[in-house]
C-alpha cells in the first residue's frame, strides 16, 4: 500500500489481505507508536484531549458523542485511579467492523488505548471483548505482551513516569453488556444491568471511580490524530463530520464486506460501488443503516451522505455504519419478528416496558407474518413504539428495539395490513 493510500485509510492500512497477525515490528514500520511517543514526550494530557476535540472525532460505537468532550468530563487532579474501558463487545446485529480492527491490527488499538489512557490519566485500561471474538482477544493479548516487553506499556512508559496496565476482559455473551453502564457492572462481576445516569461514568464508573468508555473504532483513530493532526483528520471526510469511517454491508448484496471510506460517503456509493449492488434477482427495498437498532432508510435516501448528522436528520441513526440491506424477497414481517426476537431475548429484564413489551411485539409480528393478525394489532404495535421510546426505561435498549419497527410502520404500512386475517 502506498503512503498516500495509507493516509486515506489510516485505520485499515496495515490490515493484511489474509487477515494474518500484524506484529510489533510491522506495526512500527508503518509509523506505529509514534503517536504515543509524541503524546508522552511532548504533550500534556489536556493537549491530547484538545487535539481530539479539534479533530471533531465522534464515538463510533453508535451514539456519535464527541470523544474529546467525553474525555473532558474526566477529573485529572483527584487522588486514586481513573479507568479507561474499551467497549469491544460488538454485538449489534449486522456489525463486524471492530472484529476487523482487532484481528487485523491489534497494536493500533493498543497504541490508541495507551494514548487515550494518558489523556484521561488512567493507570489501568480494560478491553472488554465478547466471547465470540476469541481470535481478537488472543491477538490483543499477544500485542499487549509485545508492547509491554518493548516498554510501550507498564510501570514507566518510555521513561516518562507514566504507568499503564492494559487487560483483556473476555465476556460470556449477552448484547446488553455493550451498553456502557451495563458493561461496567459486567466488568465488576455483577449482573450486567444498566445503571441509572447520572452519575455518568466519568463521575462514578468502575468501582465508583472516574471512568471513560470508548468504542474500538473510536480509539483506533486516536494514534492517527495525534500523529497527523486534527486538520488532516477533518480532511479525511466529505462532510463536517470528521474522519474516515468503516462502513459495512450485509444481506442480499453482491459483495458483502467492510470498507474504510471518507465519512459522509453516500448510501448509493456504498451500495452500488462497494457492495456491488443487489444480488441477481433481488431488488432494494430499504436498509437499516447502522445495525439492527437503527430505523429504516429507503430509496429516497440513496444520495444521503452517511454521517451522524445527515442520517439523524433523515430520521434514522448512523449507528455502527453497518448496513443491513433489505431486499424485496425477504418477508418484512419475518424480518421484524427476527429483530424483535433478538431484542426481547437480549433485554436484561430490569424495566417493565422492555421486558414485557418486546415479547408481545414479537408475538404480534409472528401473527402478522403468518397472516393471522387481528384488526387492532397494528395499533398495539404503534402504542409499543411510543411506550418503549426514549425516557421510559433505564437504557437505550427499548428505544433501539422499536426504532426499526416504528419506521417500518411509517414506510411500509401495507406490509402490516397484509398480515391481518380476513
Amino acid at each position, binding site marked *: 500500500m502506498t503512503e498516500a493510500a495509507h493516509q486515506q485509510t489510516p485505520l485499515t492500512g496495515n490490515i493484511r489481505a489474509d487477515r494474518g497477525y500484524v506484529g510489533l515490528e510491522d506495526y512500527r514500520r508503518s509509523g506505529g507508536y509514534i503517536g504515543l511517543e509524541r503524546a508522552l514526550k511532548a504533550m500534556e494530557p489536556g493537549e491530547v484531549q484538545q487535539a481530539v476535540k479539534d479533530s471533531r472525532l465522534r464515538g463510533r460505537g453508535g451514539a456519535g458523542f464527541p470523544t474529546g468532550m467525553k474525555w473532558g468530563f474526566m477529573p485529572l487532579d483527584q487522588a486514586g*485511579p481513573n479507568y479507561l474501558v474499551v467497549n469491544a463487545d*460488538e*454485538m*449489534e*446485529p*449486522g*456489525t*463486524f467492523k*471492530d*472484529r476487523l480492527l482487532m484481528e487485523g491490527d491489534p497494536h493500533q488499538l493498543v497504541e490508541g488505548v495507551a494514548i487515550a489512557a494518558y489523556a484521561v490519566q488512567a493507570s489501568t485500561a*480494560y478491553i472488554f471483548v*465478547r*466471547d*465470540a*471474538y*476469541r481470535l481478537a482477544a488472543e491477538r490483543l493479548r499477544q500485542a499487549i505482551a509485545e508492547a509491554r516487553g518493548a516498554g510501550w506499556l507498564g510501570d514507566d512508559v518510555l521513561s516518562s513516569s507514566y504507568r499503564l*496496565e492494559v*487487560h483483556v*476482559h*473476555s*465476556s*460470556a*455473551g*449477552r*448484547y446488553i453488556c455493550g451498553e456502557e453502564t451495563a458493561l461496567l457492572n*459486567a*466488568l*465488576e*462481576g*455483577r*449482573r*450486567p444491568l444498566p445503571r441509572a445516569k447520572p452519575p455518568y461514568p466519568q463521575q462514578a464508573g468502575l*468501582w465508583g471511580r472516574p471512568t471513560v468508555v470508548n468504542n474500538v473504532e473510536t480509539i483506533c483513530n486516536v494514534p492517527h490524530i495525534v500523529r497527523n493532526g486534527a486538520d488532516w483528520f477533518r480532511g479525511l471526510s466529505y462532510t463536517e463530520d470528521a474522519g474516515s469511517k468503516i462502513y*459495512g*454491508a*450485509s*444481506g*442480499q448484496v453482491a459483495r*458483502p*464486506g*467492510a470498507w474504510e471510506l471518507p465519512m459522509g460517503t453516500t448510501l448509493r456509493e456504498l451500495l452500488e460501488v462497494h457492495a456491488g449492488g443487489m444480488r441477481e434477482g433481488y431488488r432494494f427495498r430499504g436498509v*437499516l443503516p447502522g445495525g*439492527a437498532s437503527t430505523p429504516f432508510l429507503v430509496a429516497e435516501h440513496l444520495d444521503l451522505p452517511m454521517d451522524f448528522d445527515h442520517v439523524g436528520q433523515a430520521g434514522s441513526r448512523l449507528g455502527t455504519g*453497518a448496513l*443491513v*440491506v*433489505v*431486499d424485496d424477497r*425477504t418477508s418484512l414481517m*419475518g*424480518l421484524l419478528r*427476527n*429483530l424483535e*426476537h*433478538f431484542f426481547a*431475548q*437480549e433485554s*436484561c429484564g430490569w424495566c417493565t416496558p422492555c421486558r414485557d413489551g418486546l415479547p408481545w411485539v414479537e408475538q404480534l409480528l409472528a401473527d402478522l407474518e403468518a397472516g393471522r393478525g387481528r384488526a387492532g394489532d397494528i395499533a398495539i404495535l404503534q402504542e409499543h413504539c411510543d411506550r418503549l421510546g426514549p425516557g421510559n426505561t433505564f437504557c437505550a435498549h427499548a428505544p433501539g428495539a422499536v426504532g426499526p419497527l416504528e419506521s417500518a410502520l411509517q414506510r411500509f404500512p401495507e406490509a402490516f395490513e397484509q398480515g391481518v386475517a380476513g
Partner: protein
Amino acid sequence: MGEPETPLSEAETAAIRADLDHYEDAQAAAVEALKIVQQARGWVDDERLRAVAGLLGLPAAELEGVATFYNLIFRRPVGRHVILVCDSVSCYIRGFDTVYQALQARLGIAPGQTTADGRFTLLPMCCLGHCDHAPAMTIDGEHHGDLTPEGLEAILQRYD
C-alpha cells in the same frame, strides 16, 4: 470428589488467582473464573460454582445470579463441541433457517440438546460478527461462514 479440600484443580485455582490481580475487587474475576472452570470441564456444576464463590469471597447465590445471566456460562453439561448458530438479522436474510434445520436433522437433536454420543451441543446465538459471510456459526469459538446444507458435513468432520 477426589479432592478433599476443594473441587477445583490446582491449575484452575492458579489461573483464577492470576486473574484476580487484574482487578481492584475479587468479584470482577467472576466471569473469567467461571470460564476457567468451563474451559477445563465443559460446564460449571453446583459444587464448582460454590468453590469459585468461596475463592472469590462471594455468596454462592450472588455468583449464581451472575452465571445464569450469561448465555455462554453453561450450568448444564454440554457436548465436547458447542455449535452456536447465528439467528440474527443478516443471517435471517441470507436464509440461515435452511442450514439450521439441516444441522438439526443431521445431528438428530433440537436446539439446546446434545447428541447421544456427547459430541455436539447445538445452540442459537445472536450475531457472531461474521455478517459478510452469512449464514454463519461458530464451533468452539471458530467462525464458519457462507454455510450451505451441503457443506455442513465437511465442517462437522473436523470436530471429533
